[in-house]
């Protein structure tokens, strides 16, 4: 038999129909809070590369940092910067530690900013579990156009002075995956994190969340 339903031609057609059939499901995961929670609940681990761009009125171009991000459900994080300053931020069982690379090796950082970072890391762990509306200090809203996005706005004016809003951009293609974060301090001061080479549900060594190397 020849024509469009011949054996060789049938495979792409079947694939196309399968894609059309599945497409609403792929897009639909980020259409509702329930869909988000379900999708993120299925994510047990995340590995990704990230590029961080800090924009400030003082800077003529964003200050760019790069590194790797690891998450192990429910609440282990490793935020590793390769450049321009080598550092590793680890959250394990609620304990947060930062390590800095010096000529003599890694040293633990004890700066006052660690307290602030603990709050940020706990929030990221919540997001990774799809619990975007858990923090009572933020009003969470979900939009799908132009891409799936969760926006968190502080409920209290005092929080709003520190951060105006947080935008979490979700992947249409990979259910339960965040592809970008924007933390807006004001309209001219914000931090963009974009993730790439995202791999999920792989087995990660426990040591990643315990020690630097």
């Amino acid at each position: 038999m020849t024509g469009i339903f011949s054996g060789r031609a049938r495979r792409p057609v079947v694939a196309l129909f399968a894609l059309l059939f599945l497409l609403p499901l792929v897009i639909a995961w980020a259409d509702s809070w329930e869909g988000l929670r379900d999708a993120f609940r299925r994510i047990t681990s995340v590995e990704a590369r990230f590029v961080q761009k800090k924009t400030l009125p003082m800077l003529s171009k964003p200050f760019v940092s790069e590194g790797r991000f690891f998450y192990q459900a429910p609440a282990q994080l490793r935020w590793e910067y390769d450049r321009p300053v080598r550092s590793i931020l680890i959250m394990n069982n609620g304990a947060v530690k930062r390590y800095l690379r010096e000529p003599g090796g890694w040293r633990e950082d004890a700066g006052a900013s660690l307290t602030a970072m603990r709050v940020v890391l706990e929030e990221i762990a919540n997001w990774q579990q799809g619990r975007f509306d858990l923090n009572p200090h933020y009003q969470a809203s979900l939009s799908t156009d132009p891409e799936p996005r969760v926006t968190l706005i502080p409920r209290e004016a005092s929080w709003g002075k520190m951060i105006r809003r947080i935008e979490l951009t979700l992947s249409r293609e990979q259910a339960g995956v965040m592809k970008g974060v924007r933390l807006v301090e004001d309209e001219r001061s914000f931090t963009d994190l974009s993730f790439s080479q995202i791999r999920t549900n792989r087995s990660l060594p426990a040591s990643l969340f315990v020690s630097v190397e």
Partner: protein
Amino acid sequence: MNAMLRHLAPLLLLLAVGACTGLKPLTPLDPARKTAVLEGCRRPFLPGSYRLVHALETVMPDGAKGTAIGILVADSRTRGFRTALMTIEGWVLFDAEAGETLTVHRAVPPFDAPAFAAALAEDIRLAFFSPGGEPAAWGEGEEGALVCRFERADGRLVEVTTLRDGDMGIRLYGAGQELLKRVKMAPPQRSGLAETLEIRGGWPPYTLRLRLLESEALDNDSGPAPAATLPRGGEPSGHESGSEKGKRIP
């Protein structure tokens, strides 16, 4: 008596150290060397308007170390600047501007203490702005160091030193010649752009270590110069790292 001495020993030691750090007389040099010596004394300071980004390490009295990114936009002619401190993750902890007055735009605890802003402003002015045009004294100090001493309107004195190995130092003395702050830096390849510098001072004592990550000369008439110090997110290329406008040090 012995017990009293034991109690007084730290204080006596402190006074002895303070006395040792006072100003010592300078050995006069050949007047023909004045231009060169004064030029050397201007080398630590910014010659105009610049934007600098540093990796900043703080060391507190208990030895605890913290790290931040420091951004400084400074104009040496007006002696005005704006500075921000942020975590490596991009969280802005402190943002202040100094002109005629010091204005804090943002300060996350514990950086919200007024004394912190004032001390930081003093550190920035000491490390990056020339203390004056003509020194009150110049000559040779200890171990052959070339020294310029500048008197300030507030009665304090700033001493700029070039050591034999090229390393440079800046010291701030109080009206009683007590040492208040000191800055050490590697020889700057270009004026005001030392790759590393260390500031010590205050009571309780603290240390700031700065490593220059990016620098950019600003167009003084029309705002920031368009030249970027690096391709966005890219590795520094040989061409750009040699740029006259600025550079980024990995």
